[in-house]
């Protein structure tokens, strides 16, 4: 499959990318790993007039852990996240997602920034970044702005990233008791259902919980009802955890496709959320 013709330019810095976005207008797209954008272009679901390759921009490909704060450069590849011991210790939910995403070749090429900016409703990272309450750093002509994950992910293939903006980094507080588990689509490797959980524990009981689910609705969402129900539950009490996770997808218009009905996705959201809680609590 051959994509529609486009012009190709390389940006040497974030400022250069912003300048090029301004110059080429709304028909330009940033190209990072390309593992969401290029398949769409080959199917002609996307036909940007210009691709601005940002992979050569230095310093955006880094994992930094400073005290309790973790910052991931937007061009960090899935494989680098999957191989990071620092990430495994500080935010194992993200490490889980990076290890389960796609396949080795996809992980060698795709980036966390590109995958996030794509806004795929079945992608793994949105659930994790919601559960980690991550902050997205966006830089445009007017300067820098920071958005919480809850405002960044807006809907199906829709994020708050402006046409003239570059996503440069994603940061969050360390969450050592966190986990992401997914119902792995056997062909696409996307999440049929994926559940991310970040917990605090007091003497074996759950203190605060953040829970987010992907694959079910038009975009990943926080399961607020489950978060409240988990507070005070003993993490080792499987029945109590399962009861708290019931109805994890309530209020969502669960998607149906040839692989899974909406009702099945909603039922699996409960199951995978309970598994994620158990895994997070055991860390």
């Amino acid at each position, binding site marked *: 499959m051959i994509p*529609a013709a*486009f012009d190709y330019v390389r940006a040497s810095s974030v400022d250069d990318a912003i300048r090029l976005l301004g110059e080429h207008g709304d028909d330009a797209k940033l190209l990072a790993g390309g*593992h969401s954008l290029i398949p769409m272009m080959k199917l002609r679901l996307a036909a940007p007039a210009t691709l601005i390759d940002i*992979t050569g921009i230095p310093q955006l490909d880094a994992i930094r852990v400073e005290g309790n704060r973790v910052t991931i450069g937007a061009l960090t590849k899935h494989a680098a996240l999957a191989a990071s011991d620092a990430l495994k210790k500080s935010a194992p939910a993200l490490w889980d997602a990076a290890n389960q995403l796609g*396949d*080795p070749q996809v992980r*060698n090429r795709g980036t966390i920034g590109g995958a996030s900016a794509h806004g795929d409703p079945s992608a793994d990272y949105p659930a994790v970044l919601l559960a980690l309450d991550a902050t997205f750093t966006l830089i445009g002509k007017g300067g820098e702005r920071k958005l919480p994950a809850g405002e960044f992910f807006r809907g199906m293939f829709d994020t708050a990233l402006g046409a003239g903006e570059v996503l440069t980094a994603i940061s969050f507080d360390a969450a050592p008791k966190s986990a992401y588990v997914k119902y792995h689509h056997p062909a696409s490797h996307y999440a049929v259902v994926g559940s991310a959980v970040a917990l605090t524990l007091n003497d074996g009981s759950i203190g605060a919980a953040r829970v987010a689910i992907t694959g079910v609705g038009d975009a990943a969402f926080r399961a607020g009802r489950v978060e409240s129900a988990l507070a005070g539950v003993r993490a080792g009490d499987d029945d109590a955890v399962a009861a708290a996770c019931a109805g994890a997808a309530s209020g969502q218009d669960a998607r149906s496709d040839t692989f899974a009905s909406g009702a099945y996705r909603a039922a699996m959201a409960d199951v995978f959320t309970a598994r994620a809680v158990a895994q997070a609590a055991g860390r």
Partner: protein
Amino acid sequence: MQIDLTVNGKRASLDAEPRLLLVHALRDVIGLTGTHVGCDTSSCGACTVLLDGVSVKSCTVFAVQASGHEVTTIEGIGTADELHPMQEAFWSAHGLQCGYCTTGMIVSAVDLLKRNPDPTDEQIRAGLEGNLCRCTGYENIVKSVRAGAKAMREHAPLHSVRDLMPIHPPAEAPPPSGEGIIIPALEKALT
């Protein structure tokens, strides 16, 4: 636009549209047809090559993105006269039937062994998750990778295809006439 790559250690320069995929540049422009196009949707891994030493699906990389970078294809991993130990292992452990996926499998296996020279069967399966085979059921592919890994750890000598295939019919032998092929019952029916 001008694209300058290093392919299997040699410089390759081409003037192509930015939309030219790396796999098409390799096959149709540079003439290295060992890299295959299977699904063309970044699922099957038949087009796997090494880009700056790591495995990628060349159907999901534009050639222009690889400009200034190094590409290694199956032709750069081994040749008919000097088979890479992983190629020989796929041969000796029957890791292929039709062979379509094989070059991608071997490139992925080589990439896996760079990170983990002594993988378990489970790690081999995980390492080849991005490569699909429709013939073998994967059992012999896993065996091949295990054998290839062992050979690489033990620095096995390189062999050529000719060493491994000694039972060639002599070139001067007459082709079979076909006379013996018709079974008596059929011969009777024909007369």
